[in-house]
């Protein structure tokens, strides 16, 4: 029973559930955004290693982020957010609240577990303060003056969820769970149904559009896009970025541009769902993923997931002690809505500020209930039809 209970939600070992005989230790990332310098080496390394095609050269008007979002041809995405003092104060406030909630201590807090990168990190964290000569203090200990401006930089990636909606809903079996507990698409099996795209709670996986064998035209998402949203689309659906992406098809501006063979040589896997493989090929050869290897600041750390989680916990504890209450972890707790993520993050503000969902829940967790409701509905349909035939003819 224990096995079945955690197949759709809750903590579990995904590789073992996928019936790997001798699974490797689960691999994952810890992306420490507090020491990210926004160099985008990870983006580039990922594209180079995996042969991911170009997907639009544009100025997006989003600070230094001209990549946009994760997608079929963007498997690492570095987010840039510029914040002023009041936003920094808000981030601290929300961080303090989080601490005061007495968040779960799955592991006892263990300061001696301070691991790689932790020691030198603080200097880098204060770096944004240097941008503004006036704010000499930088975002220092808790009572020091806050800087006038700070940059948040965060390298986002597929979360390799414990309960991966993309994998569970894939009808062809193209997505599979590797022995490392990661989630990978088989390019030669996927038929481009697009179900995984809609199912991912983090908006990671996407069907590649562009020019190859058959032409699907510009990326578009059904009937709503052409008229730029249709409804009283609030919060700037599409609009916000339309300014920057003006060079490309305005309608699909919320999306990465399609890949072009003319500018990039070969474009493969058009019409196929694509995302980070956690460098399955490199892992198989005992190598570090390209992005982690290229990261010059060790912001992207790679290793056994247990170790990553421990590192993350040690790092956030250290930052709290140094007076950065805004620091918080994302994806480390395996009781969350996706059973914990393989890619964990340390963030300096609420997740939605970085474009991450604040409370994702794997959609398949409700699947038994959905099928039950559909069953009742089916019986109702049968009942309605039967009722139409009872009684007198006509």
């Amino acid at each position, binding site marked *: 029973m224990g096995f079945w209970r955690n197949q759709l939600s809750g903590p579990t070992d995904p590789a073992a559930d996928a019936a790997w005989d001798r699974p490797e230790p689960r691999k994952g990332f810890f992306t420490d955004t507090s020491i990210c310098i926004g160099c985008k080496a990870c983006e580039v390394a990922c594209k180079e290693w995996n042969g991911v095609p170009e997907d639009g050269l544009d100025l997006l008007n989003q600070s230094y982020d001209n990549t946009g*979002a994760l997608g079929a041809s963007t498997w690492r995405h570095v987010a840039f957010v510029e914040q002023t003092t009041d936003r920094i104060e808000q981030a601290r406030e929300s961080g303090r609240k*989080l601490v005061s909630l007495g*968040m779960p201590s799955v592991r006892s*807090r263990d300061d001696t577990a301070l691991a790689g990168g932790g020691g030198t990190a603080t200097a880098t964290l204060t770096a944004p303060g240097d941008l503004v000569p006036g704010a000499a203090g930088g975002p220092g200990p808790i009572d020091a003056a806050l800087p006038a401006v700070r940059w948040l930089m965060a390298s986002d990636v597929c979360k390799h969820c414990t309960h991966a909606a993309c994998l569970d*809903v894939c*009808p062809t079996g*193209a997505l599979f769970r590797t022995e490392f507990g990661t989630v990978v698409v088989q390019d030669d099996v996927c*038929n481009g*149904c*697009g179900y995984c*795209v*809609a*199912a*991912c709670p983090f908006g990671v996986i*996407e*069907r590649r559009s562009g020019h190859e064998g*058959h032409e*699907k035209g510009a*990326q578009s*998402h*059904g*009937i*709503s896009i052409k008229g730029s949203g*249709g*409804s*009283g689309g609030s*919060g700037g659906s599409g*609009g*916000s970025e339309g300014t920057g992406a003006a060079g490309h098809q305005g309608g699909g501006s919320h999306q990465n541009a399609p890949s072009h063979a003319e500018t990039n040589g070969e474009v493969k896997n058009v019409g*196929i769902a694509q995302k980070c493989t956690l460098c399955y090929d490199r892992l198989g050869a005992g190598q570090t993923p390209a992005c982690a290897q290229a990261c010059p600041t060790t912001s992207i750390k790679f290793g056994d997931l247990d170790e990553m989680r421990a590192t993350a916990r040690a790092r*956030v504890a250290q930052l*709290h002690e140094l007076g950065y209450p805004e620091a918080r972890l994302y*994806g480390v*707790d395996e009781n969350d809505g*996706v059973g914990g993520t393989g890619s964990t993050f340390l*963030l300096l503000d*609420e*997740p*939605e500020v970085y*474009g991450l*969902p604040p*409370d*994702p829940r794997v*959609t*398949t967790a*409700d*699947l038994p*209930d*959905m099928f039950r*409701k*559909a069953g009742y*509905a*089916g019986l*109702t*349909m049968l009942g*309605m*039809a039967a*009722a*139409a*035939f009872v009684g007198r003819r006509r």
Partner: protein
Amino acid sequence: MTTNPFDADRPPERRRRRHDDGSPDTGKRRRDESLMVPDVRFDSYYGRHIVKPAPWEKEVAAYLFLGGIAAGSALLGAGGRARGLPALQRAGRIGAVAGAALGGAALAKDLGKPSRALNMMRTVKLTSPMSVGSWILTAFGSFTGAALAIELGRPMLERRSRASGSGAVALLSTAMKLADGPATVGSAFFAPPLAAYTAVLLADTATPTWHESYRELPFVFVSSANLAASGLALVTVPARENGPARKLAAVSAIAELVAFERMQDQLGPTLSEPLRTGKAGRLLKASRALTIGGALGAVALGGNRVTAALSGAALMAASVCTRFGVFEAGMVSAIDPKYTVEPQRERLEKRRAAGVVDDSITTAR
């Protein structure tokens, strides 16, 4: 809620706004400062969507309608056979086969790699409503196809066997006669799953409005399927045999209106907004009017061939509007980050206020 075109150009920190509609203070919350549910604020990364909309085009919305009309028609056809209504039986079977065939084609066309459509049959996966649905559609198509082939083929064979006196042809004709029953039962058996699974298909996604409507959407969809099928029957079947279709239209119209109302209520003000506003709102309003008009017409004027056909057309149009409206609303809810962030924030803060702090993806340690 973009108020002016320059909003898009603002640096991110100014994009913050307080969310002041939607969550009325119920007065039930404790006043303790630390336990209060704060106002839900809505942040986003440059207004970009968090979840991705399904990369599905109109074909998928059309399939929702076609699959529905096929399922409902199969039931009417089976009922027609049971009650000895040959025209209804024939129309139902044709509707079922045509709907399933066109729907299947629409689905294949929407694939990123249509040449790999058969990869759907590579595996049976219960966690994938699309896999389950592919098998349902296949089974349904086989049974309805067989039923229709028997209905159309048998008279031909019988004529030939009479003319030639061939025993083999007569035997085949008898076999077909025997198979007719099972084929009808099979098509009726797979009809309700075909109509209902499409709701699960939409609901089993991260698309906020689709997912959160999973409790009521199957009821909306099966009612809409019945409506469409009764509409088709009202158009194609002579008045002397359209009694069941008229009754079905009436029952299904009520069921759909009730289920839809309930669905909107359950979604709450934020998540039901895409169903009420914009293009989806217009489609769904039109659907309601057509449903009521069509059903009243079917009940009151269904005895007349012309008015029956008009009512039937209205009912089919209503079903089209329902499907495209729900489809469109989902797309809107995925593209606007508000519909992802606000409900998630709200439920997170609610859980935290209730003292549940061990299931958040964001942790302090």
